[in-house]
């Protein structure tokens, strides 16, 4: 498998399908400790992405990622819109002119995405946000890439780590985002943004493997 513009588009379609599938569940998670719209927000965004892609697919991985970024920024709103938007924008910048990506490029893109989220949202690990899924994912991806793995293995390692990271947010007390207003009452719930991040990476990994 080569990771080129076409496979990137396929992977994004897989992400959109995953978001649609988990829309209600993500909204429920957000109702517990937020304002009950996370699933709707992402679903609105990725539906718009699919519409844009239907109108004509970009020709490079960087262009695909940029299209996703700007579409999410202009349709999602909320906290997750600019954060996921920034993530895809930084990933787009990271892959640059490359027409195909290897494991190292994918790990680097993930790292750039995470750094962008941290730069915008100022969350640290343990604050109970999507960063708690992203950072373990980035670490696992880099480890796999450093070990010479290809794109499917890198993404699969990232997805596994993100899933664990999402679960690990359960006992945390939120210090960023809406859940932070709950103080101790935020403990005992999975962070919706960490969970959606895990689903997103699982979908990317699935597309790369398939």
């Amino acid at each position, binding site marked *: 498998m080569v990771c080129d513009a076409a496979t990137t588009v396929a992977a994004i379609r897989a992400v959109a399908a995953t978001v649609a599938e988990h829309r209600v569940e993500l909204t429920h998670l957000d109702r517990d400790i937020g*304002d009950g719209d996370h699933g*709707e927000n992402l679903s609105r965004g990725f539906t718009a992405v699919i519409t844009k892609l239907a109108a004509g697919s970009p020709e490079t991985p960087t262009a695909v990622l940029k299209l996703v970024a700007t579409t999410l920024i202009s349709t999602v*709103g*909320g906290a997750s819109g*600019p954060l996921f938007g920034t993530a895809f924008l930084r990933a787009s910048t990271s892959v640059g002119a490359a027409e195909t990506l290897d494991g190292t490029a994918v790990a680097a893109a993930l790292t750039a995405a995470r750094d962008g989220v941290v730069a915008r949202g100022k969350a640290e690990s343990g604050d109970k946000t999507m960063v708690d899924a992203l950072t373990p994912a980035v670490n696992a991806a880099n480890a796999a890439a450093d070990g010479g793995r290809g794109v499917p293995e890198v993404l699969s390692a990232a997805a596994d780590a993100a899933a664990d990271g999402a679960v690990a947010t359960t006992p945390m007390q939120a210090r960023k985002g809406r859940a932070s207003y709950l*103080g101790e009452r935020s403990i005992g719930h999975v962070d919706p943004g960490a969970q959606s991040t895990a689903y997103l990476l699982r979908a990317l990994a699935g597309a790369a493997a398939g």
Partner: protein
Amino acid sequence: MKKIINDPTTVVEEALHGMAEAHRDLITVQFEPAFIARADAPVTGKVALVSGGGSGHEPLHGGFVGAGMLDAAVPGAVFTSPTPDQILDATKAVDGGAGVLHIVKNYTGDVLNFETAAELAAAEDIEVSAVVIDDDVAVKDSTWTAGRRGVGGTVLVEKIAGAAAARGDDLAAVTAIAQRVNAQVRSMGMALTPCTVPHSGEPSFTLAEDEMEIGIGIHGEPGRERVKLAPADEIVATLLGSIVEDLPFEAGDNTLLFVNGMGGTPQIELYLAYHSASKYLKDKGIEVTRSLVGNYITSLEMQGMSITLLKLDDEFTQLWDAPVHTAALRWGV
């Protein structure tokens, strides 16, 4: 879910059409991206005020667009911040050459989206400054949270800063007034019932028949604590107690007392609570010299209220009294 709607996904859009039709003399509404602007925007040479946030808090912000208050309001989906392109287009549409003040309620989403829009506006050579409203004393420890939320104080900032812009203050001066109001205003809310976001279809939380939520936000997000239902006087004492000790407000202060309904509270209860609040403040020697009672910053059909107290000086009082002509607040014109 019981609502007077056609389709959960088109609620905001249809309501915007209704606003445009009902207030043709006052506002125009743009779609794709959506924003509400003064009918006579841009007003050349005047600092423009733009605010926005999730929908479902009406009349905030669209009901406050007009002479003496906002130049534009940017509505997101229900309870979801608007996107940067909406904010940018609104900013461009109302800029009269004297710069634009963004009035942003302190929620991560609102802050991030307004920040992005401001960067994009700056790239198009529009001078933008921002004030982030964080008047909600229910959020206690700001280093452990995203900071205090912007709630009822937002309405007062928009009115007073709007009057400053109308009298000809420049961007720095209008921004400073807005910041000064934000520094002098404190709020706290409570809910008897939850609300239901149309596209979600289920209540945002549940409360037993004998419970209420103290320190609620305006997005159906739970508050500081869940307690047994109490008489109005106790509720008011809880809210005002936190508010008064926070600034602190002191004997002899002149204040504006704002009792706000969450959308589903009958006016008779708001006036009852206002009376309770009057008594509480009188006991403390705090003077109420201006007042506002009604549904101004709401959470859909939630039953509950918030109390906002602003410490007034002569300038604030003058700017508060200055003429305003919007769908939801109007006097002197």
